[in-house]
């Protein structure tokens, strides 16, 4: 499965990709903001992990834009962010985000969320 990791911090992108490799997912491409991610997004992407606070295009706008594309209607979107207010989380749900992780996170939490999302997609199929 191909992951698209979107974060303006190169450190975070490396940490997420490193964590993905540790839990068994080695195919990942990266983007530094929503705009670049949208350019890279296509039907080959099986899972999106995105930050919220980014220049050019935020993670929230990116999630909405992905959902508006034919290829992005059902792709799982996991948001990894520092924004923890209830209204932010609700906004993420409304934008089409499937699950939410607050930074700092551990690889086990990342694995649990990815597994759960993939399981729910399999169950729905």
């Amino acid at each position, binding site marked *: 499965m191909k992951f698209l990791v979107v*974060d303006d911090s190169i450190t975070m992108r490396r940490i997420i990709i490193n964590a993905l490799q540790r839990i068994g997912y080695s195919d990942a491409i990266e983007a530094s903001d929503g705009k670049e991610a949208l350019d890279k997004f296509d039907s080959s992407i099986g899972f999106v992990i995105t930050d919220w606070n980014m220049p050019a295009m*935020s993670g929230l706008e990116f999630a909405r834009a992905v959902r508006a594309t034919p290829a992005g209607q059902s792709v799982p979107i996991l948001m990894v962010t520092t924004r923890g207010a209830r209204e932010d*989380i609700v906004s993420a749900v409304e934008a089409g985000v499937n699950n939410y992780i607050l930074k*700092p996170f551990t690889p086990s939490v990342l694995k649990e969320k990815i597994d759960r999302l993939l399981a729910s997609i399999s169950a729905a199929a």
Partner: protein
Amino acid sequence: MRPAEELLYDSEASFRLVDHAIQELSASGAELDREATGFLAHVMAQPGGFAELSRTLLRAYAETAGIVGRFRETAGMLDSTGIDKLKEMHGHLREISSATEVATHGILDGLTRAVSLVEKLDEGETLSDAERHKMVSSLREELGGVVNHLQFQDITAQQLKHIEVQLADMNRRITQVVKIFAPPAVTFAKESDSSGIPGYEINLAPNPEAGQAVADEIFAIKAARKSA
């Protein structure tokens, strides 16, 4: 709004006029005291009489009120919002300091344990395969933990970016205040422009664990509704 310098100059002129009018009125004060009707006649003999004095006093009052208003406006620019922003910045700096310290300790502890495991592996010629496998797995976990602690860099970078935007705003306010009180001859450098700073609004979770619990609850409700 007129500059404070101009208002001060006008009010001084008004007060000088008042002072002059009073001096003129009191020039013949000794004889006027003895005969009130003579005093009134004297005042009325002045150009404009009491009406002119009253007008001059009102003008002086208006100018003074203008200055007070300008002071109030200045205070408004540095009001509680500015103080709150300073407090907020202080809070963010404390969080940065704390996050950096926690991460540094985590990294140091992880590396210390990793070095200890490497030494044991290096010396442990008699280790069984199972023990060796367990130690390598622990070593992998420790090194992974070290990488994980580096997330503090992103979190503190976001807080610093937020402080940068706040400081640019404070700079703008202070420049406006200085402009009000500076002599007219002083020229200012172009007002600092914070638009170049990626000023997205941040809303850092003060307690990530509690925030994660809220997120899990919301997404669990969503999942339950979807499957119902």
